[in-house]
């Protein structure tokens, strides 16, 4: 069992609290992705798990063993860094073997482990090369190899793909997913790229300002975001938000007077101010959905197979709707947007989801 359990973890730099009461469980063999905007504390949390950052309070266990006071090397973790952090003066073999040599692992065992990792990552022909003679993708694989040879309980990835170009990033993403399956490894992975998070994770942890906003399966977060932050962070282009007033009889009144009728959650009372959320792909230009909004098209971004229509409502808010194919309408024309009531999200004045 290599479960990671974090309870009530707090950390501050002087008066600045960077991690506030973090509770998180990473199940054995699961792939957990920490996402959030820069400065949200996701890297600090990862480095705390690794033991590279001391924490102020809280409890961390890896595989049932408390690791709070253990140095990184004894936590049975391996870390892949954003810049790969390969030792420039050692060849690929020694980069992978270095940690094992320091742990006084028998030579034959080191050789076996390094060769095994090299085989898995197709690094065999490169073992005698120095990092600077490798491409970005190869360096990335060496960094992963260095993690694999440690046979850790948990792999920690700190934005490992952000230094790669777009095409290689997609390839490597798939490689990491395959590797996870093959090694059945427990992985904690930090990224700010939500596509990486959605495609790789068993569980996504969305962080903001040092707090966990929501943790759950990718599609759960997508379809049932707990609050406005998660709703706005997951999904691209972002979810549309419109302020509305609840009226009697389940009527939602927008600020420009347009009204929508919906089956409102029971916690919604007449007179409440709420925020409505709906995703661009759940809206159609024209069509005959139950809900309809009218506005004027500002611009249509055409991507080929689809496009995004930016529609300005009379209230001044802009709503983005996904349109399939090549719509005939263009900017300046008035448009009717319809959408499916099933995909309407309602948030209260505090930004919490209402169900």
């Amino acid at each position, binding site marked *: 069992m290599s479960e990671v359990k974090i309870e009530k973890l707090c950390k501050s730099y002087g008066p600045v609290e960077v991690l506030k009461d973090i509770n998180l469980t990473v199940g054995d063999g699961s792939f957990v992705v920490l996402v959030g905007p820069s400065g949200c504390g996701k890297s600090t949390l990862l*480095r705390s798990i*690794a033991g*590279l950052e001391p924490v102020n309070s809280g409890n961390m266990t890896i595989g049932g063993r408390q690791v709070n006071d253990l*140095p*990184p*090397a004894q936590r049975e*973790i*391996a*870390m892949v*860094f*954003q*810049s790969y*952090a*390969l*030792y*420039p*003066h050692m060849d690929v073999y020694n980069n992978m073997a*270095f*940690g094992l040599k*320091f*742990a006084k692992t028998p030579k034959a065992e080191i050789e076996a482990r390094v060769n095994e990792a090299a085989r898995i990552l197709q690094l065999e022909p490169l073992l005698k090369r*120095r990092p*600077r003679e490798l491409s970005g993708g190869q360096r990335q694989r060496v960094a992963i190899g*260095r993690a694999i040879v440690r046979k850790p309980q948990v792999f920690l990835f700190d934005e490992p793909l952000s230094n790669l170009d777009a095409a290689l990033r997609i390839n490597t993403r798939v490689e990491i997913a395959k590797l996870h399956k093959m090694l059945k490894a427990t992985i904690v992975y930090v990224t700010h790229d939500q596509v990486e998070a959605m495609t790789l994770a068993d569980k996504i942890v969305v962080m903001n300002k040092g707090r966990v906003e929501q943790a759950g399966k990718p599609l759960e977060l997508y379809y049932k975001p707990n609050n406005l932050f998660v709703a706005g962070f997951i999904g691209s282009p972002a979810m549309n938000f419109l302020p509305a007033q609840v009226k009697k009889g389940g009527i939602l009144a927008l600020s420009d007077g347009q009204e929508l009728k919906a089956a409102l959650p029971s916690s919604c009372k007449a007179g409440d101010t709420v925020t409505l959320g709906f995703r661009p792909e759940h809206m159609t230009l024209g069509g005959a959905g139950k809900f309809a909004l009218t506005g004027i098209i500002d611009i249509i971004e055409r991507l080929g197979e689809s496009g995004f229509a930016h529609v300005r409502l009379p209230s001044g808010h802009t709503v983005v709707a996904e349109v399939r194919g090549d719509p005939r309408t263009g900017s300046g024309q008035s448009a009717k947007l319809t959408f499916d009531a099933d995909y309407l999200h309602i948030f209260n004045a505090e930004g919490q989801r209402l169900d």
Partner: protein
Amino acid sequence: MADAKAGAGNAIVGMGRGSYAMLLAFFLGPAVVIYTVFSIYPLFATIFNSLYLRQPDGAYLFNGLGNFQTLLTDTTWSVPFWNAFRNNCYFFFIHMLVQNPIGLALAAMLSLPRLRLRATYRTLIFMPTMLSVVIIGFSWQLILSPLWGISKMFLNALGLGFLFAPWLGQESTALITVSLISVWQFVGIPMILIYTALLAIPEELIDAATVDGLNQFQAFVWVKLPLIFPTIGLVSVLTFVNNFNAFDLIYAMKGALAGPNFSADIMGTLFYRTFFGNQLQLGDLSMGSTIATMMFLIILVGVMCYLFLIQRRMQRYSF
């Protein structure tokens, strides 16, 4: 902007040979002239002078390599020459064994993550390097003076007065004392160079070493040190060149005779006495040039050894 660049490129491509030469002369001329007048010409003039011998009637006669033979074999010349050479090597070894390791240690301490008052330490340690050699020499002469020197009182106050000796005045200790003063003065230079090299090493590399099980000291020895070898090589070769060209500190503290009994005499002071003359010794242009040429050759050989034996095998790392 792009158009202007392309235009300039075309202007050079389409230029006639004459105007291209003018352009080269305009940009390179000043540097070439200054370098030639103040560096290349003096070097060749010195070598040229070393091949001539002054006759009693004042005329100069071509003597081939005769002056070098005199310098290396005639005991009137060879004893002081080999003494100065030996002392100079000693002077260099003390710098290599004391100055550079201390510079490295100071740089390592300056780059400790939790150090406070970093800038203050850096400035204080670098301060002596910026002071005039004459001031340094004079201050240390006062400090070490057996009559009123503070070092004697200081040791007395500690109850260690028996350790005191007139270090600058004894044949056995004069050279090492002057060397250590020079070390004290210049230790800031290796420190700054190595400190800069250490700063260029990314933090993540040390994090990786920490995860691999190394403590701070081991990470320094096994990761940082190999990465700054090129800088240490550079510092060594700079030390070598500076030490074999040294003159001013010894002259300021011990005068041209570098006493007692030439015990602190190095190539620079020997050259000075020979070329310009000192007390009853007359200045000798030919033998002075011969010594200067020997100094040039020693430094040339040393730097060549470094370039061919060490630098070529060393790798520079970019992160």
